[in-house]
């Protein structure tokens, strides 16, 4: 009974024992006595130096899940991180955090982590050893190897990468910085066109017109959070304006689904399009700048039309619009920067931006973004490995054995190295081949810093006792140096922490800070030091070598389809595949979770006579993979696409043997980068079938007005959605008469008054939410935040197949148009969560009052009272109630993953209903604090996890009864509507209709 509800409820108390057992950190933190490792941490926003049991302590740190370098706030309880949120002061992400970043928590507590240093036995098995032993072994091997040492590391730039560089140099070895999706073509193009191989920053916020050539700037390319923020400002109907986004690529990714127009151009033809646009601009300016006029003359819209399949008229119109909107912005990335002609594409886009006068406006050089060394370097290393020129290889923050196409033969070359060492936290494919595992600390366990861009120095600090017997990579280097001596002897800092501090002392000097203590203290509190980025570096067109060129990229392989693989929005290059959140929270585009799929266009599907779930065999000379079909309206019929990220052969229980790795199909790259669009594939039906683990039911609105839209003109006139429909001659909603409304509302109030729980019309707050669909990009950050905040279990593939995923907050993706061939298709995203109806259908049907209405307007759900009749779920028109069919609470968090659980939220046991609570634990927390201070709650003092995470700030939460609150004002917004309003359930969530630009003739 009640106990059953909470048999495995992990709350603060239980955690203490658990933590006491695991790390000792928790128990010690509670007893206020510190172990020396944590005592000097400076909590953020909390006066006390000790953790206060029962209250959260926040630490500022830096995200290392990708090389963008966002600032995070780590919410800890009893010395244990329980949630990651963005750091509002950090210039890169301004308080937001993407799904991949939030999932770092599951990396920290991952059951697949290497528990301590290990050495490989002759029989191939691993054997645990002591750190001293491990250090000694490595030192010895380094001694033998002399200068025949190689280091492969990630692209992150900071004190550690500097140290690593010096260290390798001191050994006379070579260092290769490897990124799966490196941006070599862009840098090459910049070198070519502007004489600078820097990567610029793109200011989408300023842009009034955006053309993206395959760049998924909202999700997997560049600095997504920063770009999403800018995009929301430009495209979110702020100040009544909507900057048009045109997306030119053979396949729509998340950015494409948010575009106002999709140009499904032929794969590899981006350059032709960009050059033609530039040509139109130049010619219409009477051939200025002269230098370019000649270079561009050849690239007429006619040619481009021929190459891309986009009508010449459209191209010309595009060019004019692009020029007319100042400033505009053209981006090349993703698939456009991933084929043989990629450098040409990027060069062409540079020229286009230059011609339109965007350089220095929306394209800002001088940010000194970190960059990897490109593929050639790694290929070179592989060659010398094959030649036996490498005695010792050290792999750090990289998994090349997985991320290199099999055809490159990197794995074999790697095997040839005499002594292979990995500092990976997990036993990934590369580590699995190594002879020595020196697991480093997780980013949340160590001191470190990152320099994501000029002027930004971002700190990391340990926020908990190490979960396992690991060391900071820096300390590994230093201790090895001391052991090995010789050339390494000069790396004699007592610890990496000390080394870091000394570097920061130097930095303080550079920045003219006299008082280092204050400087350091401040940096820790704010998560780093943020200086104004240098003014946009002036770059000029290097005319002589800006020879605009376009050649149709040659494709290898045979077959009728061009093959394209792209970074998985959740798993990225596969590094997310060991984190249950990222596996279970469905890909925002296809809404498929847990397994691989192959995207086939509707036309192609008809041609091949395949349907969703039918297993296709894709083969190229390099290899063969099998995956189920997803018929995707957002892809050309001559292209098939697969996401990267699955098909791991190692990397922990969650990842292993799940899905397939499309890299097996690619040929060995010859140039500076890996072209992910480089081959044709032969497609064969296997006749086998599997159900897709998709969270989508029917992806059409069927005219039910769930994700509403309003034309730009109407929105600017301040019309409501309804009026807009009527104006457009479509009688849409039936408006209830005043009397009707009064009657039912009166009835609803009576219902409430009748209950004994107090006064529903009194001074209580009424919690409400507003969601602006003009800004929502469907990126999933809110969903992940909800999972993290509310202890939502991941139920696994076989349960998702039964539609039993527990996503309190889900993002519904509805298709618009695209029903007949040729008709343009677009997507609508709508976050769907409990609407906390004032007149909720779920409440009266619950026989035990487990679902009931609270005085502050919440739709309460009392887990320990619920007997599980599930009538509430049947009667919920939004279908946002989720049932614990099994003991998910005992399956979802294998130790030590359970340490991530939020102690403020009950973990639901089998047999009870659960749903969005508007983060009631945060509400109660704020109320408790306000009560202590004898004050009312201030608007914006706290917010829900989803609202906090949303990169484009489309979710606003607050007390609608306070007329000055943001949410109250938004609730009055003319664009506001309520989903299924005619049912008169009176939802507390107001959606703001998406603003649509006029469709093209």
């Amino acid at each position, binding site marked *: *009974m009640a106990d*059953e*509800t909470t048999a495995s409820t992990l709350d603060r108390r239980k955690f203490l024992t658990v933590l006491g057992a695991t790390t000792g950190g928790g128990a010690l933190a509670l007893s206020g006595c510190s172990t020396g490792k944590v005592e000097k941490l400076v909590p953020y926003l909390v006066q006390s130096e000790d953790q206060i049991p029962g209250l959260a302590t926040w630490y500022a740190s830096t995200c290392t899940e990708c090389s963008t370098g966002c600032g995070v706030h780590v919410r800890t309880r009893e010395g244990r991180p329980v949630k990651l949120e963005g750091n509002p002061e950090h210039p890169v992400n301004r308080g937001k955090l993407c799904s991949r970043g939030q999932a770092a928590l599951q990396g920290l507590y991952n059951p697949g982590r290497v528990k301590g240093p290990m050495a490989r036995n002759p029989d191939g098995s691993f054997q645990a050893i002591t750190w001293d032993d491990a250090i000694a072994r490595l030192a010895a091997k380094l001694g033998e190897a002399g200068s025949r040492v190689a280091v492969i590391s990630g692209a992150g730039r900071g004190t550690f990468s500097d140290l690593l560089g010096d260290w390798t140099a001191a050994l006379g070895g070579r260092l290769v910085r490897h990124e799966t999706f490196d941006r070599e073509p862009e840098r090459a193009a910049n070198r070519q066109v502007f004489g600078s191989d820097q990567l610029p920053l793109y200011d989408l916020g300023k842009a009034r017109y955006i053309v993206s050539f395959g760049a998924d700037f909202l999700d997997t390319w560049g600095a997504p959070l920063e770009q999403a923020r800018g995009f929301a400002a430009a495209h979110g109907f702020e100040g009544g304006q909507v900057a048009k986004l045109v997306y030119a690529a053979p396949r729509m990714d998340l950015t494409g689904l948010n575009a106002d127009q999709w140009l499904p151009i032929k794969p590899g033809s981006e350059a032709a399009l960009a050059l033609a646009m530039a040509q139109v601009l130049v010619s219409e300016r009477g051939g200025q700048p002269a230098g370019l006029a000649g270079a561009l003359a050849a690239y007429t819209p006619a040619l481009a039309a021929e190459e891309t399949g986009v009508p010449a008229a459209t191209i010309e119109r595009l060019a004019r619009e692009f020029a007319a909107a100042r400033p505009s912005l053209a981006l090349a990335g993703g698939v456009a920067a991933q084929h043989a002609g990629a450098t040409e594409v990027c060069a062409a886009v540079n020229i286009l931006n230059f011609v339109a006068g965007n350089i220095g406006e929306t394209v800002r050089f001088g940010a000194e973004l970190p960059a990897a060394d490109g593929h050639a370097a790694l290929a070179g290393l592989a060659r010398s490995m094959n030649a036996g020129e490498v005695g010792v290889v050290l792999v750090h923050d990289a998994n090349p054995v997985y991320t290199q196409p099999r055809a490159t033969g990197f794995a074999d070359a790697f095997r040839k190295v005499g002594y292979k060492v990995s500092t990976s936290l997990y036993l990934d494919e590369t580590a699995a081949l190594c002879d020595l595992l020196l697991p480093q600390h997780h980013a949340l366990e160590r001191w470190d810093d990152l320099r994501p861009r000029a002027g930004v120095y971002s700190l990391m600090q340990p926020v908990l006792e190490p979960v396992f017997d690991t060391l900071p990579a820096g300390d590994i280097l230093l201790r090895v140096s001391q052991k090995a001596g010789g050339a390494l002897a000069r790396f004699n800092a007592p610890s990496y922490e000390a080394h870091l501090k000394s570097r920061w002392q130097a930095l303080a000097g550079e920045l003219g800070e006299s008082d280092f203590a204050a400087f350091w203290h401040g940096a820790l509190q704010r998560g780093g030091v943020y200086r104004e980025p240098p003014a946009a570096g002036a770059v000029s067109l290097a005319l002589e070598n800006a020879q605009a060129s376009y050649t149709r990229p040659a494709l290898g392989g045979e077959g009728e389809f061009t093959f394209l693989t792209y970074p998985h929005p959740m798993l990225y290059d596969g590094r997310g595949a060991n984190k249950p959140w990222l596996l279970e929270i469905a890909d925002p585009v296809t809404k498929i979770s847990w397994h691989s799929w192959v995207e086939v266009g509707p036309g192609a599907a008809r041609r091949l006579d395949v349907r969703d779930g039918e297993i296709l065999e894709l083969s190229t000379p390099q290899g063969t993979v099998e995956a189920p079909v997803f018929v995707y309206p957002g892809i050309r019929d001559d292209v098939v696409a697969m996401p990267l990220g699955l098909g791991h052969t190692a990397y922990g229980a969650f990842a292993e043997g799940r899905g397939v790795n499309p890299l097996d199909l690619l040929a060995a790259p010859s140039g500076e980068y890996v072209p992910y669009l480089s081959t044709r594939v032969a497609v064969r039906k296997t006749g086998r079938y599997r159900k897709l683990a998709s969270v*989508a*039911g*029917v*992806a*059409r*609105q*069927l*005219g*039910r007005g*769930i994700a509403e839209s309003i034309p730009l003109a109407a929105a600017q006139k301040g019309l409501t959605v309804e009026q807009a429909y009527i104006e457009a001659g479509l009688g849409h909603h039936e408006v209830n008469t005043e009397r009707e409304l009064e009657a039912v509302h009166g009835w609803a109030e009576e219902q409430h008054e009748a209950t004994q729980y107090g006064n529903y019309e009194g001074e209580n707050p009424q919690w409400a939410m507003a969601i602006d669909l003009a800004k929502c990009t469907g990126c999933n950050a809110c969903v992940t935040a909800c999972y993290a905040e509310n202890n939502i279990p991941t139920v696994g593939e076989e*349960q998702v197949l*039964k*539609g*039993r995923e527990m996503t309190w907050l*889900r993002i*519904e993706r*509805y298709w618009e148009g695209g029903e007949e061939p040729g008709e343009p298709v677009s997507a609508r995203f709508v976050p*769907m969560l409990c609407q906390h109806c004032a007149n909720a*259908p779920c409440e*009266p*049907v*619950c*026989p*035990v*009052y487990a679902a009931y209405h609270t005085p502050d307007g919440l739709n309460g759900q009392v887990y320990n*009272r*619920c*007997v*599980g*009749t*599930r*009538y509430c*779920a*049947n*009667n919920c*028109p*939004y*279908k946002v109630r*989720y*049932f*614990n*069919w*099994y*003991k998910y609470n005992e399956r979802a968090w294998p130790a030590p993953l359970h340490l991530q659980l939020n102690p403020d939220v009950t973990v639901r046991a*089998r*047999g*009870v*209903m659960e749903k969005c609570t508007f983060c009631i634990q945060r509400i109660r927390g704020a109320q408790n604090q306000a009560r202590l201070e004898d004050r009312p709650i201030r608007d914006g003092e706290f917010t829900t996890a989803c609202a906090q995470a949303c990169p484009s700030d489309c979710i606003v939460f607050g007390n609608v009864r306070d007329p000055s609150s943001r949410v109250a004002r938004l609730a009055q917004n003319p664009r506001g509507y309520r989903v*299924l309003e005619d*049912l008169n359930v009176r939802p507390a969530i107001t959606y703001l209709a998406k603003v649509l630009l006029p469709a093209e003739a």
Partner: protein
Amino acid sequence: MAVVAPPPVGHGDGHAITQTHADVTRDVVATLSAPSRGYVLLLLGSAAVFLMGLLTFLILVIDGLGHAGYQPPIFWSVYITTFVFWVGIGHAGTLISAILFLFRSPWRTAVYRSTEVMTVFAVMTAALFPIIHIGRQWIFYWLLPYPNQRYLWPNFKSPLIWDVFAISTYFTVSATFLVFGLVPDVAAVRDKVTGWRKTVYGLASVGWQGTDNQWRHYSRAYLYLAALATPLVLSVHSVVSWDFAVSIVPGWHGTIFAPYFVAGAIYSGIGMVLTLIIPLRRALRIEHMITPEYHFDNLAKLTLLTGSILFYAYGMEYFVAWYSGNMFEQTTFYRRAFGPYWWAGWTMIICNAFVSQLLWFRKVRTNLTALFIISIFINVGMWFERFVIIVSSLSNDYVPWAWDQLNPSWADWGILAGSFGWFGMWFLLFAKTFPIVAIQEIKEMIPMPRKRGGHH
């Protein structure tokens, strides 16, 4: 001049051959003789099936409801379907035994005992399901109002609470009615048997002597009990129908539901009566007491009536959906016929609406084989009616993104079969323990031996 309204009990040929009270008692008591091999096998079979269901239930309790085929948004499926099915079965019993008694319709006498028994056990079966289907079965008692220091009471606004009361009331009343009606017969048996059985039946017959006084009180009390049971036929299934009707689920939210469900209940009930009696009368060798021309013909007419009401109700549902202009209703009913659950939808319409129409023909009504086959169709059809109403409606309500379909799993079928085993077990045990045909009421219908003159 013989104005005996009903024909005397007779053999199939219809000629009245007078039978003495003694014969009746003999025949009926004969049904309680040592069980045949077939009977024993049947009993063991149903017991085994029941145990299988019990095992399934234990797994559900230990591990969770997930083993059943539930697939959101379908949060109710086979269990609630079967619950409504069994509640429905019960109704025919009460109708025949109570209402027809009040209407003095003589043909009921031979069958009412068996139908009453069916009612009680059907309700006993149904009563299990509210417990089986909830997520935390061990706290089902939270649905009952009982004083507690936590100031917690059930929500009397919830139809599920109404259900609890409806079912328990129904069980109490019909059980009392059955037991009460048994007393004189048990006494009759008592007088025929010997040894320990005599003692047992003696106790069960609570000192019945058959004195005029006892008879006078008895028949009066029986009348009142019948009057008490009668409204339940209407009320209970109306309440059950409100489990659905008060919700806002398209396909559930209909004012037609109460009468529609009651008709359906009686229809399915009689279906089950036929399924049970046709073999039973042979097994117990009481063919001459329950005859096609008379009893089955009447049962069949009742079936035809209720079946036709259902036919009308089905039509009306579709009409209302179309006429209301309500997008959601329309989608639901369109998909009921042409959506993923078309097969269930058509099974229900064919088995109930169409098959019942065969009963317009007397040939069919009096042909036991035909009736038996039709009764099977009725049972299947009525189960599917509930399946369609529940599952098909839930599978496509308001938000298309949430739409999905389910496939029942072994756990669903296990419980369904188990419920039949449970029911069959009790019914068989009863048939061998107590007179399945009401002795004293049949006796009442035998004309008193009187002097006849004129022909010799």
